[in-house]
């Protein structure tokens, strides 16, 4: 699959704020690509740069090899699904969906057939005559998608399309969007702050923060192998243990000095120098917990700990334990019937352990508010 | 996006028609008034050549000064009376239940929807010696058959209050509606008597509305023409009448211009004053963390 939608070194500033800072991105044809990040990270600006509503201060945008940076939005083969849906209130559903084709001066018969096809795709065949104010949130969203897709754009841009829907509806629409993408097969560029949406829908995700891309990759890679502290903290939960590299005995692992704990083994997937300060990121579900001390194994990090908090959630339990002065979160799934076991309770002494492969060494990271 | 040249060009294109029109028909004429004030009058009723200070000097006559003074105190009195009536009314409407609020507002605004000239005329007939009010007052023994209710400053003030009251009520209502009345309850709880709470908590709370109300009455009052012309008589003459007299009776445009220039300055003064106050209060507001 070739690079289809390309951003080369684009930057955009609004007043004192650098919204996008020298970002380069290649999106492949037919891909479902998400830009994920907190508000203000620049993801919406990137979308608007692709749509043509903003011009970059620096850098260029390419579509299918052609430089579209200077093209106005009406001349790009790109269509947008707006966060507020932006349906034309004075037009019916049919007229809304057919708007792009009407502007393109297609024959009336063709427009009618295409609109019918779209109404079928979004399963609103009998509702073509309604006006937007007669539709529910989910229906409006589907009409917005249909209105964009009917023009067969090269890329479909979606700006947090599910943000205004309630939870149940959002889950339903997630599946619908996925199906639509599979059926229509065009490139989707999806912007969201919701990691669940991004992870479940995307072929690849770019995590953005403060106008820059932190990491790009398939969802599993982003989750399992975060490259920066921001990505590790933003997606799912994780524990950060600050420390310093003692040495790297072999190419795969380094020994780390973390205050209060015996030397910890961390997974080395970058070139790390001895003495370098790092934050070790270990996800709670990768940590095991038990009353008894586990068997010692070469790549196993095991420590005694004390249980501080227990949050029982039914399918799993969250434990907050203290080991070596650090407060660590452990997520334990209940794969077997739980009531036969001796439960771990507050103030119980216990052991926690994880495999060195599950601890990533990242640059020291301080999340806001900590 | 503001620095984008394409957007800038669009902006100029859309704004240009009104910018040109208003400059041509508002800014230029106003400047012209100031210019003409310094030119002599042409014996045929037009504008002569050359420059003179005669028109400005003629402003300083006792007759003109008396009219200026009368204009000022009539406007101040009108403003004061309007405020005194508007504050309780605005308060009542703001405290009224939701359903009633809009109806009351409609009642206040509807008279404004009718011809202004007609309303002044209505008062002229009401206050006429043969009119209803005079007859009623005579019947009640309060006035004699010779007293005229018309053609004096009091009539002017009455009709001006009538005209401007809706404009005064609306801004007071607008701020009162946003006012948190629990503050008054808190004051009462702390021992303040009703009028004290009103004076020390409510009034300062709606001061922005009061300010707008003052401007909305005072400035147009200064420039009143029809009302003093129809119900003021010689005793109720204001600057507006004088200007009209200079134009149509005396056919002396430059003197009219001089008077108008004074009126422009008189009108600008409170506006500028308010702007300065607003800027000061905004700065203070930012310092104290107060929201506008």
């Amino acid at each position: 699959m070739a690079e289809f939608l390309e951003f080369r070194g684009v930057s955009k500033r609004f007043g004192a704020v650098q919204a996008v800072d020298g970002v380069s991105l290649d999106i492949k044809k037919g891909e479902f690509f998400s830009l994920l990040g907190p508000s203000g990270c620049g993801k919406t600006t990137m979308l608007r740069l692709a749509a043509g509503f903003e011009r970059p201060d620096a850098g260029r945008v390419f579509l299918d090899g052609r430089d579209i940076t200077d093209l106005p939005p009406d001349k790009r083969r790109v269509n947008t699904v707006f966060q507020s849906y932006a349906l034309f209130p004075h037009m019916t559903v049919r007229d809304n969906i057919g708007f792009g084709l009407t502007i393109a001066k297609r024959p009336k018969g063709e427009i009618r057939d295409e609109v019918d096809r779209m109404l079928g795709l979004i399963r609103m065949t009998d509702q073509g005559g309604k006006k937007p104010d007669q539709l529910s949130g989910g229906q409006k969203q589907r009409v917005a998608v249909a209105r964009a897709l009917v023009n067969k754009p090269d890329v479909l841009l979606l700006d947090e399309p599910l943000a205004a829907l309630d939870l149940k509806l959002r889950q339903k629409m997630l599946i619908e969007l996925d199906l639509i993408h599979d059926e229509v097969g065009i490139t989707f560029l999806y912007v969201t702050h919701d990691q669940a949406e991004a992870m479940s829908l995307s072929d690849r995700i770019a995590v953005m923060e403060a106008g820059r891309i932190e990491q790009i990759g398939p969802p599993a890679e982003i989750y399992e192998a975060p490259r920066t502290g921001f990505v590790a903290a933003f997606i799912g939960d994780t524990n950060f243990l600050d420390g310093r590299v003692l040495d790297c005995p072999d190419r795969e692992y380094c020994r780390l000095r973390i205050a209060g704990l015996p030397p910890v083994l961390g997974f080395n997937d970058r070139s790390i120098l001895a003495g370098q300060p790092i934050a070790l990121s270990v996800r709670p579900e990768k940590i095991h917990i038990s009353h008894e001390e586990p068997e010692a194994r070469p790549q196993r990090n095991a420590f005694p700990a004390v249980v501080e908090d227990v949050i029982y959630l039914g399918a799993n339990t969250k434990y907050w334990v203290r080991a070596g002065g650090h407060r660590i979160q452990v997520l334990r799934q209940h794969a077997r019937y739980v009531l036969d076991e001796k439960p771990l309770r507050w103030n119980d002494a216990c052991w926690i352990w994880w495999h060195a492969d599950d601890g990533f060494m990242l640059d020291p990271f301080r999340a806001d508010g900590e | 996006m503001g620095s984008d040249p394409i957007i800038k060009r669009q902006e100029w294109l859309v704004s240009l028609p009104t910018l040109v029109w208003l400059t041509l028909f508002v800014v230029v004429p106003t400047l012209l008034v100031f210019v003409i004030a310094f030119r002599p009058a042409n014996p045929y009723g037009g504008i002569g050549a050359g420059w003179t200070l005669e028109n400005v000097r003629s402003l300083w006559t006792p007759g003109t000064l008396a009219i200026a003074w009368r204009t000022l105190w009539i406007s101040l009195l009108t403003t004061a009376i309007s405020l005194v009536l508007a504050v309780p009314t605005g308060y009542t409407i703001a405290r009224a239940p939701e359903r009633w609020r809009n109806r009351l507002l409609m009642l206040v605004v509807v008279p404004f929807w009718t011809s202004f000239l007609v309303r002044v005329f209505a008062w002229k007939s009401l206050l006429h010696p043969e009119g209803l009010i005079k007859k009623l007052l005579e019947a009640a023994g309060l006035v004699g058959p010779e007293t005229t209710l018309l053609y004096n400053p009091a009539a002017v003030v009455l009709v001006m209050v009538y005209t401007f009251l809706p404009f005064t009520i609306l801004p007071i209502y607008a701020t009162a509606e946003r006012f948190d009345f629990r503050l008054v309850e808190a004051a009462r709880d702390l021992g303040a008597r009703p009028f004290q709470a009103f004076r020390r908590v409510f009034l300062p709370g709606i001061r922005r509305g009061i300010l707008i109300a003052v401007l909305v009455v005072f400035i147009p009052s200064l420039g009143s023409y029809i009302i003093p012309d129809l119900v003021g008589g010689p005793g109720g003459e204001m600057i507006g009448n004088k200007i009209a007299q200079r134009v149509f009776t005396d056919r002396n445009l430059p003197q009219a211009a001089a008077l108008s220039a004074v009126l422009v300055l008189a009108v600008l003064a409170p506006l500028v004053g308010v702007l300065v106050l607003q800027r000061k209060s905004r700065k203070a507001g930012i310092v104290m963390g107060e929201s506008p």
Partner: protein
Amino acid sequence: MRRSRFPLVVTALVMAFFYLPILILVANSFNPARYSSRWQGVSLVWYRRLFESPEVWQALKITLVIAVSVTAVSVVLGTAAAYALHRYGSSRLQRVHYTLIYQPLVVPEILMGISLLMAFVAAGVPLGLLTIFLAHVTFCVSFVAMTVLARLQDFDFSVIEAARDLGASPWQSTRKVLIPLLMPGIVAGALLAFTLSIDDFVITFFVAGPGSTTLPLRIYSMIKYGAPPMINALSTLLLLVTFAAVLASQRLSRSKR
């Protein structure tokens, strides 16, 4: 906590104060007596006299011609101005623009009237229908702009972006999306401009010439120089017309929330 009755009393008095003169005026238009203090039953005599009066018809014709043309021009100018003020709001140009638009709204009419008179005299433009037209447009533009601007505040501009996104050129998106959606506000502004033009006295008084007597000017001279009670009838009719126009304007400017 017992609330004082005082504000309520004042409000009631104020309301009575507002409507008394109008009610009496309307009542008197049906009173055939020469002096309003004597009631002589209901009659349409003054209305009949009105319809038979050629000066009144002439004045009406002139007033309407001016009002319609003024409305047309000020709606176009005012809508464009409102769009500019809203879309490009914070720029320096718009701040100047806003100050200019604001002027006719705060300046006393007599100042506008006299300054325009001076300008026309200085420029050698003969006073008449044209000068009245120019003067009316000047203040109507501001009112139209403010009315449309109010409607624009609630306007979701993403529909314009959506139209552009779907292939519409700037002109097409204006014609097919912006204007239809603004139409209620535009019509509200038009009705307001129409009413203001029909009703204007002071400014018209200063810039009118011989032969361009509008209805308000005619009413004024009727009031000033003897007052046949025909004025009551004329006033009542004028009341009804302006009332209806502004009512419609209000309804439209507030329509879909």
